[in-house]
C-alpha cells in the first residue's frame, strides 16, 4: 500500500468514528426531547426522521451545499457579519452530510429505547420522586447503555462505506475514503490490481466493524413495556428551554437543506433538457427491476439463516461488489455496456438486508399459523407463495418494496463506476451536472429525483396497504 492508500484508510476510519460520535451527541437530546414533550407537529417530526432513508444522498448533498456551500445561506450570513467563511469541502462537509443522514437514524433508535423502558420502572422513578441526575441514572442511562453502543456501531459501519458523500464533498489527498480510492483506481488509473487490493482492505474493515457491532449489541435488557409517555413527569423550565432549542436547531438542520433544494430547483424543471428525462426513465426502470429482484430474493430467504446470508450486503460495500462484478464480466463482455444490469443486481443486493429485516418476522408468523394447514391441503411451494405468503405479506411487502425502490432510485454508487453518459441514471446525471457547474439544471434535477424517490416509495407502500384486509 502506498502512502496515499494509508491516508485513505486513516481518513475512512477517522471520519466514520467522528460521524458516529457526533450523530449520537445530537441524537440523544433530540430523542429525549421527543420522548418527554407532547406538542403539535411532534408526530410529523418523528415520521420525517424516517425519511432520510429514502432520500437520495446526492439530493441531500445539493441541499447541504445550498446551506453550507461557498454561496450558501450560512456563508452569506457570516460574510454579512464580517466573520470568516466556512468551507463544506473536505472533512467538515463529509461529517455534516453523515450527521444529516444519521442523526435521524440514531434518534429513532433511542426513541424506541425510551418506548421500551418498562412501565414499572417509570412508575418507580415517579413514586420515588426522582429528579435530575438521579432520574437520568435510573431511567435514561441504562437505556442508553443498551442502545447507543450498537447505534453508534451501525453509524460507524455505514460511514466506513461512504462513497457518494466522499465523492461529492470529499476528495483530494486529505479527504479520500477507501471507497473513493477504489473508484479512482478504477476510473482514472484503471489499475485493477490496486482496486482489488483496496477492495480487500475495505471488505476486511467493514467486516470487522460489522462483527464488533453485532457482538456489541447487548441483549435487550428491557421487557416490552406498554405504550405510554412521560408527560406525567415534571420537568423544570431549564429542561423545557433546552428541549426547545434542540428541537428547533435540529429540525432546521434537517429541514432547511431540503426546503432550499426544492425552492431553488422547482422553477427550472420545465427547462430541463430531454437527456434528463431519458435518465429519469432509466432510473425508473432500474428501480423497478431491482425492487422485483430484491423481493424475489427476500421471499426465498425470509428465514433466520437467510437473513444472515442476506445481511452480508451490509458489510460488503457496493463499490467492492461492483469491482468484483466488473472483473467477472470483463472476460465475456464490455462491462461498461452492462452498467444498468449490474446496477440493478447490486441495488437489489444492497436493499436485501433491510427488506429481510422487515419481511422475516411476518413471514415466520405466517408459517407458524398456516404451514400446517397448507400441508394438510397439499399446497406445493409455488401455491404456498402465490395463495398464502404473498397475499398475507402484502402490507410489509409494499413497505419494503417502497424502501428498495427509493434506495435504488437515488443510488449513486456502482453506476458512477460503470456509467457513461449514454446510460446515466438520474443520480449520475445530477452528479455530472454538478461537476459541470450547471447548478440551475442540477437543482431542478434534484427536485425531480426527490419527487421520483418519494413517489415510488409512496406508490409501493400504498399498494401494500390497499386491500390489506387481513
Amino acid at each position: 500500500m502506498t502512502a496515499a492508500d494509508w491516508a485513505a484508510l486513516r481518513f475512512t476510519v477517522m471520519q466514520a468514528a467522528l460521524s458516529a460520535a457526533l450523530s449520537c451527541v445530537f441524537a440523544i437530546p433530540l430523542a429525549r426531547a421527543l420522548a418527554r414533550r407532547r406538542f403539535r407537529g411532534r408526530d410529523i417530526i418523528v415520521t420525517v426522521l424516517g425519511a432520510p432513508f429514502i432520500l437520495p444522498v446526492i439530493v441531500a448533498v445539493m441541499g447541504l451545499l445550498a446551506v453550507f456551500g461557498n454561496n450558501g445561506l450560512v456563508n452569506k450570513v457570516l460574510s454579512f457579519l464580517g466573520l470568516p467563511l466556512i468551507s463544506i469541502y473536505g472533512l467538515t462537509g463529509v461529517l455534516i452530510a453523515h450527521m444529516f443522514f444519521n442523526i435521524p437514524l440514531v434518534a429513532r433508535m433511542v426513541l424506541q429505547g425510551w418506548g421500551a423502558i418498562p412501565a414499572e420502572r417509570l412508575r418507580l422513578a415517579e413514586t420515588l420522586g426522582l429528579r435530575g441526575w438521579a432520574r437520568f441514572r435510573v431511567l435514561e442511562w441504562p437505556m442508553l447503555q443498551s442502545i447507543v453502543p450498537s447505534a453508534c456501531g451501525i453509524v460507524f459501519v455505514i460511514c466506513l462505506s461512504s462513497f457518494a458523500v466522499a465523492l461529492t464533498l470529499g476528495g483530494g489527498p486529505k479527504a479520500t475514503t477507501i471507497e473513493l480510492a477504489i473508484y479512482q483506481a478504477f476510473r482514472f488509473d484503471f489499475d485493477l490490481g490496486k482496486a482489488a487490493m483496496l477492495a480487500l482492505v475495505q471488505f476486511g474493515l467493514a467486516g470487522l466493524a460489522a462483527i464488533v457491532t453485532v457482538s456489541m449489541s447487548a441483549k435487550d435488557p428491557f421487557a416490552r413495556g406498554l405504550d405510554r409517555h412521560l408527560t406525567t413527569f415534571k420537568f423544570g423550565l431549564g429542561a423545557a428551554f433546552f428541549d426547545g432549542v434542540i428541537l428547533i436547531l435540529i429540525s432546521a438542520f434537517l429541514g432547511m437543506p431540503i426546503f432550499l433544494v426544492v425552492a431553488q430547483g422547482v422553477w427550472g424543471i420545465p427547462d430541463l433538457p430531454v437527456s434528463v428525462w431519458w435518465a429519469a426513465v432509466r432510473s425508473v426502470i432500474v428501480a423497478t427491476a431491482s425492487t422485483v429482484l430484491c423481493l424475489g430474493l427476500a421471499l426465498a430467504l425470509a428465514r433466520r439463516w437467510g437473513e444472515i446470508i442476506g445481511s452480508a450486503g451490509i458489510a460488503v460495500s457496493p463499490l467492492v461488489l461492483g469491482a468484483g462484478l466488473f472483473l467477472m464480466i470483463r472476460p465475456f463482455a464490455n462491462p461498461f455496456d452492462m452498467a444498468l444490469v449490474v446496477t440493478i443486481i447490486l441495488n437489489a443486493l444492497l436493499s436485501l438486508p433491510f427488506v429481510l429485516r422487515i419481511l422475516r418476522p411476518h413471514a415466520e408468523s405466517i408459517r407458524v399459523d398456516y404451514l400446517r394447514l397448507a400441508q394438510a391441503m397439499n399446497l406445493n411451494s409455488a401455491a404456498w407463495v402465490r395463495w398464502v405468503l404473498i397475499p398475507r405479506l402484502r402490507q410489509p411487502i409494499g413497505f419494503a418494496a417502497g424502501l428498495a425502490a427509493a434506495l435504488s432510485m437515488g443510488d449513486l454508487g456502482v453506476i458512477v463506476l460503470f456509467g457513461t453518459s449514454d446510460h446515466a441514471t438520474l443520480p449520475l446525471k445530477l452528479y455530472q451536472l454538478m461537476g459541470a457547474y450547471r447548478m440551475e439544471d442540477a437543482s431542478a434535477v434534484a427536485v425531480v429525483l426527490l419527487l421520483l424517490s418519494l413517489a415510488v416509495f409512496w406508490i409501493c407502500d400504498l399498494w401494500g396497504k390497499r386491500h390489506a384486509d387481513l
Partner: protein
Amino acid sequence: MLICENLSLRVNDFHIAAETLALPPDVYAVLGPSGAGKSTLLSAIAGFLKPASGRILWNNMDITHLSPAQRPVGILFQDNNLFPHLTIHRNLALALTHKARITSDQDRAIGQALDRVGLTDLAQRKPADLSGGQQSRAALARVLLQNRPILALDEPFSALGPALKSEMLELVRVIAQDNGTLVLMVTHDPNDAKQIASQSILVADHVIHAPQRTHTMFEHPPEALARYLGRVTPS
C-alpha cells in the same frame, strides 16, 4: 382399517406410547385430560409428527413415512382451518386445484360440498364475515372436498357454544355414516364422546389405550378416566 403398531411418540421431553390400535371405520372419541397427548396422537396419524418408533398402517399399507398430503387423512385443527384472506370459495377450491381458473366440474363439487354443510349462499364471503358456526361448516366442507377416508378432528368445535357444537357433531356423524369415514375426534368433554362416538380411546398417564365401547367405558370407567371425570372409584 387403521392400525397403529407399537407406536411411540416423542415431542421434546414429552413421550407417550400406544397399545396396539386396530380401528375399523367408525367414530372414535380420543378422550383424556389436557396435555395427555391426544393431539400428539392425531398429529402422528395425520403426518405432522414422525413417530419415535412403531408403524402406522392403512388398509395394510405402511403410511408411517408419508407426508401429510399423501396420507388418507383429512384434518381439522383447533383454529386456522381456513385462510382468512381468501373467500370461502377459493379456500375450498385450493383443496382441488392450485390454478386460478376453476373448471366447471370443480365448481360443481364445491357447490355440492357447500350444500352439504348448508352454506350455499356464502361462498363469496371471507371467513371473518362468517359466524363461528359457519366457519366450522366451511372448514368441514373443505375436508369433505379432500375426500379422505379418515377424518381427524383436533377440537375444531371447541370455541362453539354447546348447541352449535352439538349441531356440528351431528353433521359430522351423518357425513361419516354416509361416506363410511373413519372419524378420530379429540375431546375433553365426555358429552361429545357420548353423542357421536361408539368407541372411545383413552389417553392418560403416557399411554394411549386401545378403544372400548363408549357406553361401557362410562359405565365402568377405568381408574385414569374416573380420576379425570372426578369420580371416586369404588375399591
